[in-house]
């Protein structure tokens, strides 16, 4: 179930939530971001910080759908910082520096026809977060952690 909190992952802390991102489902892509947005709004996070976090999360979700057959997203908020962790078991990013270059994309034409694959995903995530780390191993997957300070 895309965007819904992972049943096994539901935590007791109010400020941490996990979402499953379905692979290959462009109809549902963005549901984790939407759920996170609602959560942050309910916590009284300022709109500009929510917008930045939502952009980061959406781009991450789309990347997981396009490249990694889905994955998991976790959001934590400690009152000052929104931390998003997106983990997948996809092919990995061989050259993160290259992938961070605007316009660089390995998406297919079919993906581009949907309006994605402009090579702006990772650059948008970098620009809208205060910190971003990419931990990727070829053939094993990628974990991206982003923080947005409120």
């Amino acid at each position: 179930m895309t965007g819904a909190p992972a049943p096994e992952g539901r935590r007791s802390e109010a400020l941490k939530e996990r979402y499953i991102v379905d692979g290959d489902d462009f109809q549902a892509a963005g549901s984790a971001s939407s759920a996170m947005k609602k959560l942050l709004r309910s916590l009284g996070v300022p709109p500009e910080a929510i917008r930045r976090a939502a952009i980061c999360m959406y781009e991450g979700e789309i990347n997981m759908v396009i490249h990694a057959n889905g994955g998991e997203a976790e959001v934590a908020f400690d009152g000052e910082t929104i931390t998003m962790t997106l983990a997948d078991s996809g092919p990995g990013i061989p050259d993160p520096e290259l992938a961070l270059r605007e316009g660089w994309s390995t998406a297919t034409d079919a993906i581009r026809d949907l309006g994605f694959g402009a090579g702006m995903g990772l650059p948008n995530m970098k620009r809208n977060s205060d910190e971003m780390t990419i931990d990727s191993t070829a053939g094993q997957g990628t974990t991206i952690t982003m923080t947005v300070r409120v």
Partner: protein
Amino acid sequence: MTVQSLAETLKLTVLCGGADALSREVTGGYCGDLLSWVMGRAPQNGVWITIMSNINVAAVAGLADIACVVLAEGVGPDAPLLERAAGENIPLLQSPEPAFTLAGRIFNALR
């Protein structure tokens, strides 16, 4: 200028959008069909002119806090887009005019 008055001034067809969403102030705009590009650059409370008509348009518009989407060139929304935009109360407007003309007219209307 509100979404409603923009629609009236430019004779845009309102496909969906509740009264509260249509009364939102528009303060700028953006043109584009590449979703990540729009996501990264469209201003908050802006009007977004596009010919992209799939469901992901609603996701981007909602997440980037866009005030309304204008589908140019007479492009109609896919059924899932219309449904999601209506569900999330994102005004979806439509015009037979090309994006270039629309952008010029909207730019002038917002000045």
